[in-house]
């Protein structure tokens, strides 16, 4: 038995018998998802550690598919009896009792896209405190108007094993580290905030360099800059999206609409449009779960499929969707390794991994120079999209006015609102400065959160509605 395995007494034969039991009421596919998550976190406020927390969460989810129907149950007791009971519950989605022979399960191949040298969670907590203190000092050194600094470090090691009725069992150990800094700056009545963060599927060696100082300064500078920000001009205007962080807009406004579950059911603005022009010819969009150590990367998805690199839009033409096993089967497509779930308590869905737009041909400075009057949006606090129509809303946490081809005053309360496909048709310049964002994004869908990556070059949008007060 492999000592690193979380399957314990669940050998291939037992897994095969439980899978057969799960399909024993007429299901045509089943999977067992074993998960053991060890987490640790620490936060520093007012220059001292306020609390440290750690925990372990484990369980097994059983899913049975029968046509378009899903039955799901889970147990937090990882014993064969408990998993078998969950399998019987999930099996009830089908109602055609029959005898299913045990499934022959064999181990799938393994690979390693994560570079975690110094192990997470197990390191003594004290060794991490200094890291938090360094970020705190760097933030406070930026400006005396920085009145509050919060630094948090979170670590997670997620061990998963997936056994599927197609006859494969795959295991993976997924590390995740994230350091975040939040600052409040005050000047008289004005009070502003700044945030920064970075994370990856790496070990504590990620913190060996000056990352703590960089993040501390970045959050403090953003808060201080926002002190002098003026209200954003409201209405439609030319917007230049900065590189890296603006990928969150791509994720929301385009990516979600390309998840196959929405398209299979005909809910998405992109439904039935493969092969058609859905964006400016300058736009290419790729989802890639295989990038080394990135936050959205996975060796295998939560249905045991290897992650992949999927071209979604190429030169403005829609090429395909992001699939999980269910959508791939029902749409007669290839699974793309995008079946992900928050935990053993949830059934998987088609989800993004790292979603980005590759570099274009325009010099980023030339893009700014080309704008007579507009908004330069650099950093975003997150956004929301309505899948049916593709409408989106984004709040920029760092933005500037562009006047006569130059970046001038910082702006506050900048909200971008629009329709994904419409805005993507208005991309008229794409920069050479592609970069993947620092790993700090969490994607929510149907109540489930999973870590994702985003990336983007600078992009000019000929017209977007900006919400503002001026």
């Amino acid at each position: 038995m492999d000592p690193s395995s979380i399957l314990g007494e669940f050998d291939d034969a037992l897994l095969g018998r439980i899978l057969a039991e799960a399909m024993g009421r007429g299901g045509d596919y089943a999977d067992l998802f074993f998960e053991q998550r060890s987490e640790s976190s620490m936060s520093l406020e007012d220059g001292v550690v306020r609390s440290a927390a750690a925990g372990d969460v484990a369980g097994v989810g059983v899913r049975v598919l029968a046509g378009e129907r899903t039955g799901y149950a889970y147990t937090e007791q990882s014993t064969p009896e408990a998993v078998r009971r969950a399998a019987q519950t999930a099996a009830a989605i089908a109602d055609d009792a029959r005898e299913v022979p045990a499934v022959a399960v064999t181990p799938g191949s393994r690979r390693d896209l994560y570079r975690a040298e110094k192990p997470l969670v197990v390191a003594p907590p004290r060794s991490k405190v200094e890291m938090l203190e360094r970020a705190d000092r760097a933030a406070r050194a930026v400006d005396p108007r920085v009145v509050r600094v919060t630094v948090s470090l979170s670590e997670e090691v997620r061990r998963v094993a997936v056994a599927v009725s197609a006859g494969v069992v795959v295991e993976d150990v997924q590390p995740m580290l994230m350091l975040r800094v939040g600052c409040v700056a005050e000047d008289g009545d004005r009070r502003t905030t700044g945030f920064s963060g970075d994370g990856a599927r790496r070990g504590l060696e990620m913190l060996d360099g000056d990352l703590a100082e960089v993040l501390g300064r970045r959050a403090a500078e953003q808060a201080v800059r926002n002190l002098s920000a003026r209200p954003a001009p409201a209405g439609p205007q030319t917007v230049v999206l900065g590189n890296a962080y603006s990928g969150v807009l791509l994720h929301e406004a385009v990516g979600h609409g390309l998840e196959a579950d929405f398209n299979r059911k005909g809910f998405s603005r992109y439904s039935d449009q493969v092969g058609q022009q859905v964006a400016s010819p300058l736009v290419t969009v790729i989802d890639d779960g295989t990038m080394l150590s990135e936050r959205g990367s996975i060796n295998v998805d939560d249905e045991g499929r290897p992650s992949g690199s999927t071209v979604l839009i190429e030169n403005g033409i829609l090429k395909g969707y992001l699939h999980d096993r269910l959508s791939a089967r029902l749409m007669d497509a290839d699974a793309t390794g995008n079946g992900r779930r928050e935990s053993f308590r949830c059934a998987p869905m088609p989800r993004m991994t790292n979603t980005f737009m590759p570099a274009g041909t325009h010099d980023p400075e030339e893009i700014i120079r080309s704008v007579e009057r507009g908004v330069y949006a650099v950093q975003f606090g997150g956004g929301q999209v309505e899948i049916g129509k593709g409408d989106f809303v984004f709040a920029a946490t760092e933005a500037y006015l562009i006047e006569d081809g130059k970046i001038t005053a910082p702006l506050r309360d900048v909200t971008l609102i629009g329709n994904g496909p419409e805005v993507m048709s208005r991309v008229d310049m794409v920069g050479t400065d592609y970069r993947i964002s620092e790993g700090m994004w969490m994607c929510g869908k149907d109540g489930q959160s999973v870590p994702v990556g985003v990336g983007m070059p600078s992009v000019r949008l000929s017209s977007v509605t900006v919400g503002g007060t001026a």
Partner: protein
Amino acid sequence: MSSDLDLAQIAVRSAVDAGATSADALLVESRGTSVRVRDGETEKVQDSHSRSLGVRAFVDGRVGIAYTNDATEGAVRIAARRAAALAEVSADDPNAGLPDPSELGSLDAELDVVDAGAAAWTADAWRELGLAAESAARADERITQSEGARAGGVTSHIAIANSAGFAGERSRTDCYVYVSVFATGEKGERQRDGYSSAAAHLSDLESAGDVGREAARRAIQRCGYRKPPTGAFPVILSPDVARDFAHTLADAVSAAAVFRRGTFLADSLGETVGSSALTLVDDGTLPRRQGSRAFDGEGVRSRRTVLFDAGRLASWLADSYSGRRTESSTTGNASRGTTGSPGVGTSNLVLAAGDRTPEQVIGDVPQGLYITELFGMGVNLAAGSWSRGGGGLWIEDGKLSYPVQELTVAGDLRTMLKGVAETANDLTWHGSTAAPTTRIDGLTVAAG
């Protein structure tokens, strides 16, 4: 198997044995069934049962937290020792600790938030409810597609124990039905909207027919939308949007935000910051409401707290730590999961209603926005700015005239508080929040 309260007490004793000077523990157990249907067919059935324990250990003013979902005595003891060990990492904080003993206890009232009938409902029963809601929504021929309906119920049981002698248990049932549909307008454009009802008791849920018809009405109402003019206009919040606004205000008076300097109201306690039409109350004592509870996440007795009293900022909303940090005290609003420190959260939140009908309130507006939905995260409490995407109906000559979408509404929260011109008499509950139609002046509407 040990009972939930036994396990919480074992965790507390183990933490103290491991060197904690005080400790508390929370065990949360929930059982539920949820069903999703679409086009008259079952899409998904899920059965859930989880049991998680979190333990907080204090070594003087140092705090450590550990958690597990292995609800066995052995695992609970390990977690308790781990919490005590983690406390050594944090700094000594004189404000950290259990609530004041005088605050601990259970509200002596029958809150009636458990529906044993709902807890016994099978997947088939929830499926019928979802199917009925979907079918009612699809009865209108303008509804051309269903995104599906969901229905389900969860019964949760919470046990809390601490080393100051508190031991309490409480249960609640949460039932819901939701349906979402697409309408097709005269020009062929497709609009999606949905509606849900949630309650502790099945008998307090709106009927499946009403839920379905309301979802259909909302989707149809959006068809044929235009873009509104850009400028400063009076804005009338529908009760749905007013509930969101009420939560923004509750967040702005959270004592946790106050001591972190994370709210524009941090220096305004006792001041008149809003109009006389603004009264906001947190109330954990209301029978049959989903936010009602005998005690909060730290074992502090529930109560009614007036946050804004006719425009005056009357109280922070606090748990015991944020209460001490703001030199006030807990208001019984510790919101707590098993995996972290308690935070501050509302119980039931009620934005007080006024005297006139919504039609009268809208009737005063020559031109403005009746906003029925908000979209996106554009609230910055520290700066006091509010900038949201949204949609609704445009008001012309005091009447709702045509649908508007793809707009943003922005303003300064200080101005908005003063600008709460009037609340109507249609207090509307959803889940644990109630608000009426509310007029706010001083906002800027922008459209593309």
